């Protein structure tokens, strides 16, 4: 690889790592609350609630920065999905992950300026960041200020509905995080992508 590609500007890297730390805090405290009990004291319930609330507010703030950054900088170009041929491109990428990678094939969609994500990455990031994340923030806000929640939704308690929805979204995002971390080891060397997200160069 001759010339290094500057893919991740400082604001993206700062946002990414602070978001990652807060997300880990949210997952740990969220699990701790969901599985709270008198016998197991992982994190004391009230401390877990306080930490989850603070991390939740900070993550919302970071999300606003992310949206703002993607509105006013060129980074937004990376998130545009070209529908034409998308399925084909995704299948190609899937084939690479499930077969090509083992026989040392070159990745079908290597990062380029303004196209840093491969098709599978792009679709999953858009779903996570523009669909799951807003719902997670809205339901989280509802649980932080329960008086804002409708008393009943489809005949069941609005808080219950919101809480289950919030937990499910949190669960899916934690699975996403697991896959995301593993996918980051698929660079030239297992540490390549991690280093990129630190120094900005691919």
């Amino acid at each position, binding site marked *: 690889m001759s010339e290094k590609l500057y893919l991740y500007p400082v604001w993206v890297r700062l946002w990414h790592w602070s978001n990652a730390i807060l997300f880990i805090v949210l997952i740990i405290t969220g699990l701790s*609350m*969901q*599985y*709270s*009990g*008198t016998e197991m*004291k992982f994190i*004391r*319930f*009230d401390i877990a*609630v*306080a930490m989850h609330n603070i991390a939740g507010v900070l993550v919302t703030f970071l999300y606003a920065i992310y949206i703002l950054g993607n509105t006013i900088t060129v980074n937004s170009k990376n998130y545009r999905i070209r529908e034409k041929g998308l399925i084909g491109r995704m299948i190609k990428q899937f084939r690479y*992950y499930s077969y090509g*990678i*083992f*026989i*040392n094939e070159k990745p079908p969609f290597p990062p380029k300026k303004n196209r840093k994500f491969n098709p599978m990455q792009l679709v999953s990031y858009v779903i996570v960041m523009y669909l799951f994340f807003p719902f997670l923030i809205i339901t989280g806000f509802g649980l932080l200020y*329960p*008086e804002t929640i409708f008393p*009943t*939704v*489809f*005949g*069941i*308690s609005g*808080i*219950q509905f*919101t*809480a*289950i929805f919030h*937990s*499910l979204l949190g*669960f899916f995002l934690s*699975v996403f995080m*697991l*896959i995301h971390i*593993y996918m980051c*080891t698929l660079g030239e060397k297992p540490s390549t992508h991690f280093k990129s997200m630190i120094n900005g160069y691919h």
Partner: protein
Amino acid sequence: MKFSLIKKCLYLLAIMLFTATSYTSIGQEAEKRIPDFAEENGLCFKCHGHKTYNYYNEWTEQNVRERMNPYFIVDSIEFYESNHWNFQCTDCHSMDYENFPHDGELRMEEKPGCLDCHGGDDTYADYHFEEIEDEFQRSVHSDKHSVDFTCWMCHNPHSYKISARTSENIKEVIVYDNNICLSCHADINKYQLISDQENPNILEKHDWLPNQQLHFANVRCIECHAKTNDSIMVAHLIQPKELAVKMCVECHSQNSILEASLYKFQARENRNKLGFFNPSLLENSYIIGANRNYYLNIISIFVYGFTLLVILIHAFLRIIIKK
């Protein structure tokens, strides 16, 4: 075409929301009862059911209108909706009250307590009145106060009605029961009837409680302040403040104490459904930690396990093949 499909979905959603919110109001028609002593009691309510009363003053030979002592006013509607609805006033009060003006000494009469009627009566065996009395005697209400603290301090004999067993709406039970506590703890005049101490400010004392408003609206004071008892529906053993529940996880856990207190009746009536732990708690609220779903737990463990397995196999193959 697409637009009409969205429109149809919106209509369907609106109908679902409407049916979900409206069916709760059906079938709540008040039970109509005809009291046996309406006529006799009517003579008392003629004065004691109003803020003013009229009588003929034989000394001045004039009709007089006087204000009724507010503490002696009994709301006849509340009375006939209460548990003692079919009583005659003179079942508990002296027959001499039938004469007017009432004899001043009558106010010294000893008033019957709960056990005077309910004690040792098999009809009321389910209610365990003797155990309630025993719990009350061991509670701070009895310990710290004089014999003036009777059942009537909390349960107004003219309006009291059981709610935990009969009310379908748990929120009503909560408001009703908490109002009993607040009738003293938020009313300095009544509080001073039995105590010379300063009435503690409830909001300040519960400053530490997260989401205070939500807790106050969704659980009763006794959930934390009374020791539960398996045979009594509503715990009466109010404990010293040092023994009050302060650990979040006592409620926010799979073994939530709320199943043995606030939701005791519902918990007995409906056991596990839809795989939720503590399902009766779910009907009215969602309590983090207490309302896990068995199936969602299993599915989440399976999804995590499957993801990890795929990752491990993928990583393993990469290492093996690259070698």
